[in-house]
């Protein structure tokens, strides 16, 4: 018989039946149920096994603070462990499995650990499993690890998608219960932009679980009509099923919106949206969370919090048992008995620890005042309780209320600390709330409903008024005033029986006492030593109880004992929600060069250079190894002509009357007198004298220069120049803008490069050697009037140019040049061949400009001007940087020409040692920074840095690579391996 414990009524739709499974068993519930309420409707109390001792556990609460009913929901890649059944909205086909047991839930083989509990108390792993020492690493730790952990992952990639979003508002109201709705109504009436968020899928907070009347109608009805009013307002955004999980800086709040029902219907939709809400002000109306009392065996399935028990009957029409008992230290617990009776549920006893008169008559219940519960029976389901007066009562559901704790988590996200309030025996927020946040209602400690609603109503208006909005003159909702009377009760001595404090981490009152005994007096130490409050529920129902026990143990006040620090997220957030779209190809953007489409057509192999895709090499039919392609590209370029897309290198357009002075200050060499129509190589230093970047800068007009940078430093150099311009020399008339993307730029290199270009460049532009010598630069036109720029510079060491056209013509120009170059056997070349050629030529690049090398180290000491001040000049004069025996850049070639050929790798990364020295850091003389196989020399070569390198040409040392296991003799030589005189450049 299904749903044996379902009654009539509730806020669920009993006409819409849903089917779900729990541990394979098919069960039924209704639309509007949570997984927890549906399980209880089916009298399923045993829902899991506890973390350490594998004790049978049941549902405790009705909200996100749930410690026990954490389950695996879904199967396959969709499986999500540690999901709280109390906040999981029931849907058709939901698959739930209990966690943390070996063998069936009802007969967990791991429950044997419960018998070892005396050995497994707080901090046991510091005191036990010590001997023999060797056993720890191989036996004990793996065994402990194996049984530790909560829930299992599918290990498959998350198949769901997640999204992010940004919302702005004047007032963010957190919590849509009685207080939050009251605040929202007044705030929204002022025209202020309001966002109202609630973690539940049904707005209304406790009004949906209580019977108190608001404005003479049912609380849940009042809530429904308030929500309807608000949803009709253009200036209000309602976000239900949305947890405000964090309060960050600058009024930014993290909000996790659950959209799983939408993503189940359409797998392309995101399951969750992680919103950043920018709020000028916020009002926290998060209500209060009930706490338990520590008594012997207080953790059995069937023992729940009293507020939850009446929520189940009122909202979900579920009776948690047939013979319910109530154990309380406050008036509120009695309301549970009353509501159960109204629904025809038997209440067999009420036990109130206070020595006062009974709060109200409850038909059929035995009343025990000034009494406590000290023990319970019924391992897999509650059977009976034992009182402090010795009496035993048969019961299948015990509703416990130790009082209510204001839910002030968010008020402490900026390291705030709450203060103790004796009157309500709870912690309440103090003045240190995050900037812009006000608190109202139970979250503030205003426990009486009528007061809380008035508070929300007034605060909504006053916060709106602070922002310059005037609220309408609305009447606050009215509700009968019901006092909240409580006397703190942290628990009673239970003799040999364990009294549980933190259910999820299996921490008992004895553990807390033990920690105190062993010298852990600070609440932060007790937390970590016992693990109280460290589980996925972060001790929401346990922390204050634990603090109470600590305070009693140590004879301190609650204020003196204090709380631990509250940190976001308020409740668990899937990593996927923080990742958002950052997966796979969307991890970061991809940048494509102008010749990308053409390169794809050629079957180019691409390499990621930052976010760019650059052609690395262009394999031809028959080539099976990349070296074949790269060697061919080098040989053919040097023999005739090759084309390489160099668009990615930074291009910065600089204009102004003071540009040449500006460049003089950023480069080590002089630029002020660079003639119009000329390019010059420039080296830029950091303030500390180390080389930062290099490039060529061309002067196109008196007040117009174009600077190039390396690809990797395009952004950082631009930033550096902006810093210099805005901060260092704001008086100079200098204006700069990136034109990296404005022009498609190609290197055309090789003895036939000029011949090729003469077919593209319009004939009125003379690019002969006399008219356009080495290092010339200028504006030209190509292909019938298309504006272009030509720079005669060479990275390869061949006769070479770089030609730039507006990027819209980039693809077309590549095709035109390849066609024009056919007669010269033109070859496209990629970054690999580009690298080979510059190393053969001895040009420093990124690996040499690694931040540890100065101009002198790079062999460019001669370039450094002695006649002007520039960035890096002063610190570049430091004694240490001027020493003659620093590691200086030179070339290295193997003594044995065939060295490394069989290994198939270069010398890159190898360290340099003397011929007979041991390979230790003490003997390290330097390293190889760049190394390739040189098709021109027929062997591997390298550029690198070695102590006193400039004076050691001709010497022999070893290049040792301990990672790839090579050790070869090399000769120190000039880094200019190929055409050292530079004759090929100037033809």
């Amino acid at each position, binding site marked *: 018989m299904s749903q044996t414990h379902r009654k009539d009524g509730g806020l669920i739709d009993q006409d819409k039946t849903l089917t779900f499974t729990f541990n394979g068993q098919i069960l039924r519930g209704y639309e509007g149920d949570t997984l927890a309420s549906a399980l209880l409707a089916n009298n399923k109390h045993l829902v899991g096994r506890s973390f350490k001792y594998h004790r049978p556990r049941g549902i405790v609460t009705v909200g996100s603070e749930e410690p026990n009913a954490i389950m695996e929901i879904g199967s396959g890649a969709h499986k999500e462990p540690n999901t709280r059944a109390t906040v999981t909205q029931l849907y058709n086909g939901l698959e739930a499995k209990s966690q943390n047991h070996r063998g069936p839930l009802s007969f967990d083989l791991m429950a044997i650990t419960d018998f070892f509990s005396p050995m497994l108390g707080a901090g046991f792993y510091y005191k036990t499993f010590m001997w023999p020492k060797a056993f720890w690493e191989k036996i004990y730790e793996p065994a402990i690890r194996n049984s530790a952990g909560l829930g299992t992952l599918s290990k498959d990639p998350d198949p769901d998608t997640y999204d992010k979003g940004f919302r702005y508002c004047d007032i963010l109201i957190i919590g849509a219960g009685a207080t939050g709705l009251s605040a929202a109504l007044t705030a929204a009436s002022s025209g202020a932009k309001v966002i109202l968020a609630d973690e539940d899928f049904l707005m209304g907070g406790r009004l949906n679980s209580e019977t108190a009347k608001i404005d003479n109608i049912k609380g849940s009805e009042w809530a429904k009509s308030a929500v309807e009013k608000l949803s009709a307002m253009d200036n209000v955004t309602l976000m239900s099923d949305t947890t405000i999980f964090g309060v960050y800086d600058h009024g930014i709040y993290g909000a996790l919106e659950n959209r799983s029902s939408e993503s189940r219907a359409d797998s392309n939709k995101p399951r969750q949206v992680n919103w950043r809400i920018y709020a000028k002000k916020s009002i926290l109306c998060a209500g209060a969370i009930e706490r338990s009392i520590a008594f012997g065996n207080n953790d059995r399935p069937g023992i729940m919090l009293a507020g939850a028990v009446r929520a189940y009957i009122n909202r979900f029409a579920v009776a948690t048992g047939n013979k319910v008992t109530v154990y309380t230290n406050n008036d509120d617990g009695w309301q549970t008995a009353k509501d159960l009776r109204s629904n025809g549920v038997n209440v067999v006893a009420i036990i109130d620890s206070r020595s006062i008169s009974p709060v109200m008559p409850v038909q059929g219940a035995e009343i025990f005042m000034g009494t406590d519960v000290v023990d319970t029976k019924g391992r897999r389901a509650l059977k009976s309780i034992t009182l402090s007066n010795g009496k035993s009562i048969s019961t299948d559901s015990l509703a416990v209320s130790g009082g209510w704790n204001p839910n002030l988590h968010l008020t402490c996200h900026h390291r705030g600390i709450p203060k103790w309030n004796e009157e309500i025996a709870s912690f309440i927020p103090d003045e240190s709330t995050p900037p812009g946040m006000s608190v109202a209602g139970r979250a503030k400690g205003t426990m009486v409903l009528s007061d809380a609603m008035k508070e929300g109503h007034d605060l909504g208006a006053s916060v709106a008024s602070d922002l310059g909005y005037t609220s309408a003159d609305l009447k606050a909702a009215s509700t009968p005033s019901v006092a909240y009377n409580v006397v703190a009760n942290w628990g009673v001595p239970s003799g040999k029986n364990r009294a549980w404090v933190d259910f999820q981490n299996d921490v008992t009152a004895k553990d807390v006492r033990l920690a105190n005994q062993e010298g852990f007096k600070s609440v932060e130490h007790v937390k970590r030593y016992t693990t109280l409050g460290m589980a996925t529920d972060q001790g929401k129902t346990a922390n204050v109880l634990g603090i109470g026990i600590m305070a009693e143990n140590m004879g301190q006040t609650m204020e003196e004992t204090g709380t631990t620090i509250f940190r976001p997220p308020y409740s668990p957030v899937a990593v996927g929600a923080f990742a958002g779209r950052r997966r796979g190809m*969307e991890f970061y953007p991809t940048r494509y060069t102008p010749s990308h489409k053409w390169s794809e057509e050629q079957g180019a192999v691409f390499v990621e250079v930052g976010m760019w895709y650059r052609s690395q090499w262009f394999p031809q039919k028959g080539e099976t190894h990349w070296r074949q392609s790269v060697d061919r590209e080098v040989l053919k370029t040097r023999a005739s002509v090759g084309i390489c897309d160099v668009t990615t290198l930074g291009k910065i357009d600089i204009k102004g009357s003071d540009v040449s002075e500006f460049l003089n200050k950023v480069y080590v060499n002089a630029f002020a007198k660079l003639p119009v129509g000329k390019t010059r190589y420039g080296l830029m230093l950091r303030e500390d004298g180390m080389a930062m970047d290099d490039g060529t800068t061309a002067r196109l007009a008196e007040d117009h220069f174009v600077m190039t940078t390396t690809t990797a430093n395009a952004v950082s150099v631009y930033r550096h120049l902006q810093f210099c311009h805005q901060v260092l020399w704001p008086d100079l008339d200098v204006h700069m803008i990136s034109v990296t993307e404005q022009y498609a730029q190609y290197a055309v290199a090789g003895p036939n490069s000029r011949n090729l270009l003469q077919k593209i460049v319009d004939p009125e532009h003379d690019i002969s050697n006399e008219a356009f010598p080495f290092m010339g630069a200028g504006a030209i036109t190509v292909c019938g009037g298309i504006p272009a720029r030509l720079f005669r510079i060479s990275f390869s060491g061949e006769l070479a140019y770089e030609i730039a056209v507006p990027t819209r013509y980039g693809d077309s120009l590549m095709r035109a040049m390849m066609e024009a170059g056919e007669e010269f056997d033109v070859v496209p070349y990629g970054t690999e061949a580009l690298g080979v050629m510059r190393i053969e030529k001895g040009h420093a690049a990124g690996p040499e400009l690694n931040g540890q090398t100065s101009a002198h180290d790079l062999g460019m000491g001669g370039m450094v001007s002695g006649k002007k001040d520039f960035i890096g000049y002063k610190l570049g004069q430091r004694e240490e940087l001027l020493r003659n025996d620093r590691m200086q850049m030179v070339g290295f070639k193997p003594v044995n020409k065939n060295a490394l050929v069989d290994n198939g790798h270069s010398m890159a990364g190898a360290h340099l040692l003397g011929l007979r020295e041991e390979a230790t850091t003490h003997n390290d003389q330097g390293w190889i920074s760049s190394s390739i196989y040189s098709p021109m020399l027929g062997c591997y070569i390298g550029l690198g840095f070695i102590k006193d390198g400039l004076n050691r040409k001709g010497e022999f040392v070893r290049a040792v690579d301990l990672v790839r296991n090579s050790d070869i003799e090399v000769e120190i030589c000039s880094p200019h391996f190929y055409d050292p005189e530079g004759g090929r450049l100037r033809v």
Partner: protein
Amino acid sequence: MILKEGVYVSDYELLPESPLGGVEIEMDGFSITEVTDKSLVMVALPREKFSEVESSIDKSCGLKLPEIERSAHSKDSSITLWRLQKNQVLAYFTYEGNDVEAHLSSRLSAPAYYTDQSDTWAMIRVSGQRTRDVLERICPIDISPEAFPVGGVSRTIMEHIGTIIFRDGDDSYVLLTMRSFGRSMLHAIEVSADNVL
């Protein structure tokens, strides 16, 4: 070589391509269109010449230099100036020729520095009733109509891509991202639309 207008020129013809091939996507209450008919030129204002530049532009185009994060149109509506920074104005206008810097310089007649940016940016117009619903998934700045009026322009980062956003209609915005990021930006907008609509 071929003879063209009395002069020998290379016989290869270069054909222009827009960054996104003129993409046009229609969805329910939301459209994505590449803007291909606009040129962009960055106008840099020299330090000592602000008032001179202002009065020249007023004289030549009947246009008052807008405040930062606002735009203004010339009297004949052919040129829109976006004030990005105190000394940075981005001109947004229609012009087919290859000498766009010289053209703008002669139109504005102002002593500023002009740099062509027409090929630097991919320009995507997003429009329709649901535009703000879609954009709020990737746009971290406040684009509510009260906070970001028509004619407003700002810079932000959307899905890790630097973006200039210009509101050119009640429910219409032009998003500019550097050309090489164009495909990634288009994808980000499409995913947002798929997630929201």
